[in-house]
């Protein structure tokens, strides 16, 4: 895959405090030719009755992707750039193991197609040097795609974190979450 112009230094950053819940990311994601008008990124209210806070969830592209590890059909693969690809349609048997295993709740089984579908970090765009569509259009900077140096220069009050601790499990990801300055990990109880 060396013929691609995928920029290895660029990473994906999510800053929840900036999310305005507008869903530009969802709409833009769905435009991708491989997504068939379904979005692979999801915006939801946390609790609309008490706040307008929304969350945005994209595939975190784990270093050691559980979804791939539990796939009985070997349909999910991670490439040399750290992108965890959506299930190979020829192999996916629609068993939903990945859906249940993902600690972030990312893969969705699309019942219409009997297939798992998830974000590939816009491989068609990132592999030719463009940014993923969601991070391109995001109007608030809740989603950003670029280098760690860029984000640290732009946002001195936050620190990107890509270590998540679920109980005894530590998960490292390609996607970063922006946290208060100096944070090193996010512990999920």
């Amino acid at each position, binding site marked *: 895959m060396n013929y691609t112009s995928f920029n290895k230094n660029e990473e994906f950053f999510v800053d929840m405090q900036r999310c305005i819940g507008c869903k530009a990311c969802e709409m833009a994601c769905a435009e991708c030719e491989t997504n068939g008008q379904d979005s692979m990124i999801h915006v939801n209210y946390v609790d609309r009755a008490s706040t*307008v806070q929304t969350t945005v969830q994209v595939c975190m592209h784990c270093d050691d992707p559980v979804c791939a590890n539990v796939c009985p059909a070997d349909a999910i693969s991670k490439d040399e750039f750290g992108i965890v690809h959506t299930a190979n349609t020829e192999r996916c048997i629609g068993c939903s193991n990945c859906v249940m295993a993902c600690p972030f709740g990312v893969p969705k089984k699309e019942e219409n197609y009997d297939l798992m579908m998830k974000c590939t970090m816009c491989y068609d765009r990132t592999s030719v040097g463009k940014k993923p569509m969601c991070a*391109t259009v995001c109007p608030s900077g809740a989603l950003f795609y670029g280098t760690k140096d860029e984000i640290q220069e732009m946002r001195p009050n936050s620190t990107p974190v890509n270590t998540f601790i679920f109980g005894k499990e530590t998960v490292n990801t390609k996607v970063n979450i922006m946290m208060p300055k100096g944070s090193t990990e996010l512990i999920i109880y």
Partner: protein
Amino acid sequence: MAKLPVSEEHIVSLFGPHKNYSPKEGYEGRDEPDELVKTHCCFCGMQCGIQLSVKENKVVGFEPWMEFPFNEGRLCPKGVQRYLQNNHPDRLLSPLKRVEGQGFVPTSWDDAMDKTVGEIKRIQEKYGNDAFSMLSGVSLTNEKSYLVGKFARVALKTKNLDYNGRLCMVSAGAGNKKAFGLDRGSNNYSDLEYAEVIIVAGANISETFPTLTHWIWKARDRGAKLIVIDPRVIPLARTADIHLDVRPGTDSALYGAMLKYLADHDMLDHDFIDNHTSGFQETLDAVKDNTLEWAEEVTGIKKEKIQQAAELWGKANTSFLLHARGIEHHSKGVDNVLGCINLVLATGRIGKPYCGYATITGQGNGQGGREHGHKCDQLPGNRDIENPEHRKYISEVWGIDEKDMPGKGLSAYEIIEAIHRGEIKGLLSICFNPLVSLPNSNYVREALEKLEFYVCIDFFLNETARHADIVLAGSLQEEEEGTTTSAEGRVIRIRQAVTPPGMARTDTSIILEIAKRLGVKDKFTYENSEAIFDELRVASKGGTADYYGITYQRIEDEMGVFWPCPTIGHPGTPRLWEDRKFKTPDGKAHFNPAPYKLPGEVTDEDYPVILTTGRVVSQYLSGTQTRRIGKLVDQFPEPLVEIHPNMAKQYGIKQRELIRVSTRRGEGIFPANIVETIREDTVFIPYHWPGKKSANQLTPGTLDPISKIPEFKVCACHLEPLKEIAPPSTESTAYASV
């Protein structure tokens, strides 16, 4: 004869709104377009750069335009989906005529034009020229706005031309003219970057100007403090340093108290006030009783928070104050704007880097459209239609006798009132859907039904157009060349990506054809849009909004040019007032007293609850375009009435229970959305929907005496829970409500 020819349901079944979705696999040719056309979004005043993908004369998708400096590829959901207004099944493909009992049937251009011109002449001969009126809109380009202004005065020879900018930023325009002698945001948004304090007053930026959010955060990343003034915890307020949850209709009390606090604690720029302003003392006298305690009582905001905000504002070295419809849509909208300007002038933070002040113009070409044409009291270059010198200059440019130039006409809502009174008998509208966007829609409908003749130019059969006798199938933004002026004052190029489909024609060619048939062809012959722009440049020359030095070529080469730009060699003016030479008669910036007054309607025993209206992120204005785009409709399928849990408890209201909301003008039934993010004494309904789902059934036609803007933001209502839970939102057909 402006009553509906058949039932409204029948019209909807044929002409929509229908929801348009992209095919699952995308439009044919989307991934191999013939061309990517660099242009701008057709919606709000941000005018984000976007590339439209074109295949075989159809818009089939979009691609972000990374190089355009304001948005660098960023878009909101409306921008992402805007391409779906093209290829739309509801698109009007030929002129239509009203046939009683049959509805709207296609007809030839010749027939439609004959009828239109015949009726214009008949009405004007019988009732006088001013009995035929025109309503226009600022989604139109500068070229079309200019052309409409000239057309109404020179071809229709009527004084009664106004536009939907009357519902947009006219209060800001009037306030800016009083204070600065010029109506434009004083700064471009890059001045937000190092502002230490940002005040956002009555501007739901994250929903109505989403791409501006990025610029606010740029400043916050560098330590800026954000103060948001809004009765609701809007998305931007959620993380603000201070949220001032103002009671609707009391904004000027807040600004008065803040000004008094600045003066009492000597947080003033005396040098600036003494040398570059006038009217300070009388303005201060007008707020001498505006203590923090008084302001807390009036505005409902805790006095400690007001004090905190005043301290932050007073001590800052740099700052930016932004406001929008939230403070402008009031019977004292101009006063509210002046109250904000007084805070800016008192601290002298204007005309310097990172010291900014601006209204955020709402409509796509709200800025440019209000400078060159179709405002009832105005001539190109932001000239005054009652000023003899201005009249003389424009008459020369237009080649008419100054005596034939009509005078000041009625404003938009006053035109509807005059129709209702029977004084105006005919109407030509373009780019305006007053039945949804004007207040007191039942009254507006009655007025429309009284018209003897109504002709509408539009690309979809909007709700108002259903009352027309003739509908002329016009063009979408992407079907004509032109320019717009963004909310920053940046003049930019709109590109023709495709030609109008079927027998539809460009708006420009329709207006030119009517002018020709009215016998003034010699004054309405242009080779192309650029020729109209070149005439506009000359017409604006010497006015406050001077475009003379701006050319199509320069706009392209420089990614837009900021007016004023009086000569070809002039660099344009991204930041106003650096020279401290204000455009007022005495050359100074003017403080204006803006003492607090009650809103036009206050709560009482019968109508005990405050109602305010606004917008949602996925809809734009009256929804003519966005209520036809499937995913934008699905995002907010219906208007909900937002109610605080404490008020819900008081009335025994359950989540999604249907609530009859009534005012002195009308009533509507809306599902309740019980949220803590609104003041306890206020309910909120977004206004984009028509018919029985229209919030404007409820709003009052009270106007600001200076700007004539209607008071959409505050009135008194009554709530009645109907003991019935609304069906799921997904089943709602509010987008096409009759």
